[in-house]
């Protein structure tokens, strides 16, 4: 039955600014449904973003919302979470926001395994600023700053997240909204840093430059380029070239930062008391 998005939206700000057929809205919906499933009070949730099309999300959703500077959302979120470890802090970032300018904060949030959920809306392009190449732009694809095709290889955000220590990592696509919702939900439930990479679509800035300007066609492209983890295991690197693996890629119990810091407080207070 129809989901009550209105309850979670700032209806006076709607319709949102995203272009016709833009995948961001699909991710935001999955996020709202997952929040609803968690049964969290809206007052206990913060949604934090950097700058970009994706990062306009905070303006539309009715939580404690924080629209920070480009690439820095995780740093603000870390402060929020440490100040109130009992609350739920969600970060939503574009691929440029999270993995270009924000790459370092991403790395260290993973390492700290701090109990935040990061949703990366990966549309392999800088949407907001007009279609410049992002660190996830496919090799050879066109962008306004890659008129002869992208020279550098795309970053595998989920893979780096795992290597850096994130304890829950999953990748879905906007063509599979239910799956996305499930991953985000599992990310919320997970204690530790959770990364959900949502392969998305930017028909305007990416699509138009790469003969995929029709939202439907682009959505299909995304779906076709995703390979479920199980299936990927049986494929050769050549077959996987240019594809991305979807599914719950990593799920581990690991020391979480705010919990561990609580132990530091205890140790410190004992030490102080002892003196």
């Amino acid at each position, binding site marked *: 039955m*129809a989901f009550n998005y209105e309850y979670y939206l700032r209806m006076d700000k709607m319709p*949102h600014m995203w272009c016709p057929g833009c995948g961001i*809205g*699909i991710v935001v919906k999955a996020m709202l449904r997952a929040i609803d499933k968690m049964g969290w009070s809206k007052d206990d949730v913060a949604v934090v973003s950097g700058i970009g099309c994706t990062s306009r999300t905070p303006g539309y959703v009715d939580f404690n919302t924080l629209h920070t500077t480009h690439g820095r959302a995780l740093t603000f979120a870390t402060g929020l979470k440490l100040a109130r470890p009992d609350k739920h802090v969600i970060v939503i970032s574009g691929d440029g926001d999270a993995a270009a300018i924000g790459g370092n904060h991403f790395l260290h949030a993973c390492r700290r395994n701090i109990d935040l959920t990061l949703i990366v809306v990966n549309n392999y392009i800088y949407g907001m600023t007009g279609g410049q190449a992002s660190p996830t732009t496919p090799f050879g694809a066109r962008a306004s700053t890659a008129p002869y095709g992208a020279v550098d290889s795309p970053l595998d955000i989920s893979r780096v997240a795992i290597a850096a220590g994130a304890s829950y990592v999953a990748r879905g696509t906007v063509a599979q909204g239910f799956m996305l919702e499930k991953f985000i939900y599992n990310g919320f439930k997970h204690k530790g840093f959770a990364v959900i990479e949502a392969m998305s679509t930017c028909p305007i800035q990416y699509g138009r430059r790469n003969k995929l300007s029709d939202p439907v066609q682009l959505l299909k492209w995304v779906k076709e380029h995703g390979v479920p983890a199980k299936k990927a295991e049986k494929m050769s690197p050549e077959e996987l070239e240019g594809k991305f693996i979807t599914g719950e890629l990593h799920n581990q119990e690991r020391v979480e930062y705010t919990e561990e810091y609580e132990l530091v407080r205890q140790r410190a207070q004992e030490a102080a008391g002892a003196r």
Partner: protein
Amino acid sequence: MAETATAEKVAKKKEKPAPRIEVIDEFCKGCNICVDICPTNVLEMKPDPTRWVGAVVVVTRPEACTRCMLCEIHCPDFAIKVY
């Protein structure tokens, strides 16, 4: 017992009213995603020059709807609801 259970299920299904699909016109940007994704061709795109991309979605075959929710889940604009 097995029979009864089945009967109950059938009964429940019957209780459920026919699907109702609501399109929020002011939100719809005419991207065509819902039209394409609907497995039973419930929706159609209607040209409308006053709208975003010159078109808006309309529900043409509500009776065919299976309530699979695919359209609702994938509409990027919060513009379609299936009850």
